[in-house]
C-alpha cells in the first residue's frame, strides 16, 4: 500500500474579475513507503503547487490526499500538527528559506522543540549530530545563514528537514540553484540519507538527468496534469507521450551530443500556453507533432501502456 495517495486532485487559484486559474487538473500520484519518486515538468506546470497541496500549504478545490490511510484534507488541530511532524520539505533556495536572524543551531533547535523530539538538555547534542549527518561540523551551529556558501546552506536546509525524523520528504528543486560540482555533492548526500533513513521521497525537478539519478519511478507533468508515469528507465528509453519525448529530446546531454551527430531531433514548437487559456482537449495538442482532431476535442484519459507505464495520450507510442 502506498504511504501517500493523491487522487484526482484539483487546485484553482482565484484571479481578478471572477476568473479562475486551474493549476492542478485531476492529478493522481502515489508514493510507497521508502520509495523515491520523481516529478518532472517545466516552469508553471504545477509541480510546486502539488507539493504545497500535499503539505496543506495550498487548499485544493477537489480530489483527495491520503497519507497512511488518513484523509490529509480533513486533518485538524493536533492531528494536522502530527502530520506536519512526519512530513517535511526541502526548498530550492536555501537562503530564502532560512531565517537570517537565527543562528543555524537555534533554527534547528526550534524544530526539535516545536515537535518535542528530545529533551532540552539533549537538543544541543542532537543539533551537532544533525549537522554532522549532512556533512557539516558541530561548530557551525553558532553561525548564521549568510556565513555559508550555497551548497552548505542547502545542507542546512536538509538538516532542518531531517530534524523531526520525518517519514516523508518533499524536495522542491533542491539542487537547481547550485553549481555542477556542488550539485553532485548534494544529490549524493540526499541519496545516502534516503537509503539510510528510508524516508519516502518526492523529488521535484525540471532536470530530467537529475531525476533519473535519484528516482526509480517518475511522473511527467504538463499544464497541471500528469502526462506519463512509470519506471524511470522505461519512460526515458521508450517515452509513450509526445510531450515526454519532446522533453527528453530537448535536454542537452553530453553523451548524446557526442555520439549522435546528425541524428534527427528537433525542438518542439511553441511554448507552454498560459494555464488560464482553458484549452479544450489534450493540453499538449497545440504543440504536438502528432495532433489529430480528436486531440483538440477530447481530453485523453490516463491509460496503461506497455512496460507498466501510464500515459495520457490518445495515440501513445508503443
Amino acid at each position, binding site marked *: 500500500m502506498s504511504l501517500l495517495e493523491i487522487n484526482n486532485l484539483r487546485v484553482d487559484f482565484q484571479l481578478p474579475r471572477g476568473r479562475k486559474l486551474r493549476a492542478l487538473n485531476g492529478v493522481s500520484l502515489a508514493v510507497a513507503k521508502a520509495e523515491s519518486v520523481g516529478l518532472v515538468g517545466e516552469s508553471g506546470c504545477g509541480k510546486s503547487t502539488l507539493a504545497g497541496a500535499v503539505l496543506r500549504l495550498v487548499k485544493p478545490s477537489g480530489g483527495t490526499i491520503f497519507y497512511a490511510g488518513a484523509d490529509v484534507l480533513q486533518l485538524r488541530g493536533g492531528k494536522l500538527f502530527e502530520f506536519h511532524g512526519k512530513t517535511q520539505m526541502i526548498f530550492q533556495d536555501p537562503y530564502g528559506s532560512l531565517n537570517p536572524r537565527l543562528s543555524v543551531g537555534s533554527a534547528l533547535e526550534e524544530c526539535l522543540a516545536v515537535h518535542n523530539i528530545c529533551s532540552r538538555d539533549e537538543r544541543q547534542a542532537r543539533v551537532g549530530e544533525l549537522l554532522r549527518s549532512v556533512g557539516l561540523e558541530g561548530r557551525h551551529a553558532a553561525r548564521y545563514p549568510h556565513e555559508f556558501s550555497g551548497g552548505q546552506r542547502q545542507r542546512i536546509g536538509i538538516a532542518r528537514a531531517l530534524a523531526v525524523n520525518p517519514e516523508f520528504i518533499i524536495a522542491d528543486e533542491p539542487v537547481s540553484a547550485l553549481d555542477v*560540482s556542488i550539485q553532485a555533492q548534494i544529490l549524493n548526500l540526499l541519496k545516502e540519507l534516503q537509503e539510510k533513513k528510508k524516508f519516502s521521497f518526492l523529488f521535484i525537478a525540471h532536470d530530467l538527468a537529475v531525476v533519473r539519478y535519484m528516482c526509480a519511478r517518475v511522473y511527467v507533468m504538463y499544464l497541471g496534469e500528469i502526462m506519463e508515469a512509470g519506471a524511470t528507465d522505461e519512460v526515458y528509453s521508450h517515452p509513450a507521450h509526445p510531450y515526454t519525448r519532446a522533453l527528453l529530446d*530537448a535536454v542537452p546531454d*553530453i553523451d548524446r551530443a557526442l555520439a549522435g*551527430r546528425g541524428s534527427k531531433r528537433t525542438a518542439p514548437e511553441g511554448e507552454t500556453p498560459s494555464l488560464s487559456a482553458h484549452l479544450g482537449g489534450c493540453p499538449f495538442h497545440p504543440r504536438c507533432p502528432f495532433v489529430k482532431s480528436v486531440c483538440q476535442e477530447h481530453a485523453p484519459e490516463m491509460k496503461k501502456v506497455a512496460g507498466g507505464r501510464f500515459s495520457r495520450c490518445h495515440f501513445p507510442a508503443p
Partner: protein
Amino acid sequence: MNAQTYKASAKNIAGAPLLSVHNLRVYFRTRTEPIRAVDGVDFNVANGETVAIVGESGSGKSVTALSLARLVPAPGYYAGGEIWFNSADTLKLGLDKLQKMRGAEISYVFQEPSSSLNPVFTVEYQIGEALRLHRRGVNVREETFRLLNMVGIADAKNRLRSYPHELSGGMQQRVMIAMALACRPKLLVADEPTTALDVTVQAQILELLARLQHEFGMAVLLITHNLGIVAGMARRVSVMYAGRIVENGLTEEILTAPKHPYTRGLLAAVPRLYSAEKRMSSIPGTMPDPVSLPTGCKFHPRCPFAAELCRQNEPAEQTVSETHGVKCHYWK
C-alpha cells in the same frame, strides 16, 4: 538544422583569428588587495567559429566575456593583457572607436532577457536603437520587422508594438538575439543565453543561434556552465577555474579525454540522461574565495592528486596535442 549536433564547418576557419586574447587580467578594486577575477587568460576565436568558455559561478567567465567590449563595470579594471579584435587592441581603443565597435562588430546576448530589456520601451524602439546608431538610412520599421521574423517571432507585425513584459521569456530572448544581430556583428558573445529558460525553449533558442550563425557566418563565444550545451554547440572549449583557463582544446578532446583533474571532476559530476551510474562522483570542497586564493595551482585544495609541487608552483600550460593544452603538473 539541429542545435545539438551542429558545428561550424572547419573550412570557414582560416587565417588570423578574429579575436585573440593574451594574458588578460581583470581585477576589482577593494579597500585592501584587489580581487583577481580574471588572471592571465589566453584564447582566440576564428571567423565563423563557435568557442565555448565553461566554468562554475565565480570562475571569471562572465567577466572575461564583458571585457571583450570593455564593458566591465567599476570597480573592475583591466590590470594587463591584450584583446586583439579586428587587428586592434580593444583595451587601447579610444572611446569613439569603441562605441563604433560595440553592438556593430561585437554584440551580446545575456542570461536574463527580462532585465536586459528596457521595460518602458517597445520592442521596435529597442531593436531600432542599434539600427539608428550603426546603420543610418536603413528603414527602421521594415528592418525590425525582418529581424523579428528572422528570430522566429510569430505575428511580428503586432509584436513591434509590444513591451517586454508582454512577451514570454523565450520570446524576450528572441528579441535580444534580434537586437544583437541587427548590425550583423562578426562576433556574438552569448553569456548563459538559455540558463533562465525551460528546457524545450532552451532547445529552440540554441537551434536558432546555430542556424543564424550558419547563415551569417559570424563567430560565437558561448559562455556557459552546461557541458551538454558545449557538446552540442562548440567546436572548441576552454575550461575556467578561479580566473584561469585550466584546459582548452577541441570539444571532443576535452569531453572524451580530459586531462585536468578539475575538468575530469566536472564531467564526472554531471548527471547523464542515459547511464546506469549508481553513484556520481563529486568534487569535494568549494570554489576558493577570490580574495585569498590558494598558492600554486588554484585547484590543489580540491584535487585528489595534489602533491607538494602543486602547492608551491602554479603550472604553466603544457601541450597535450596540437589543439589541446592543460595547466597541470601531473596531467600525464
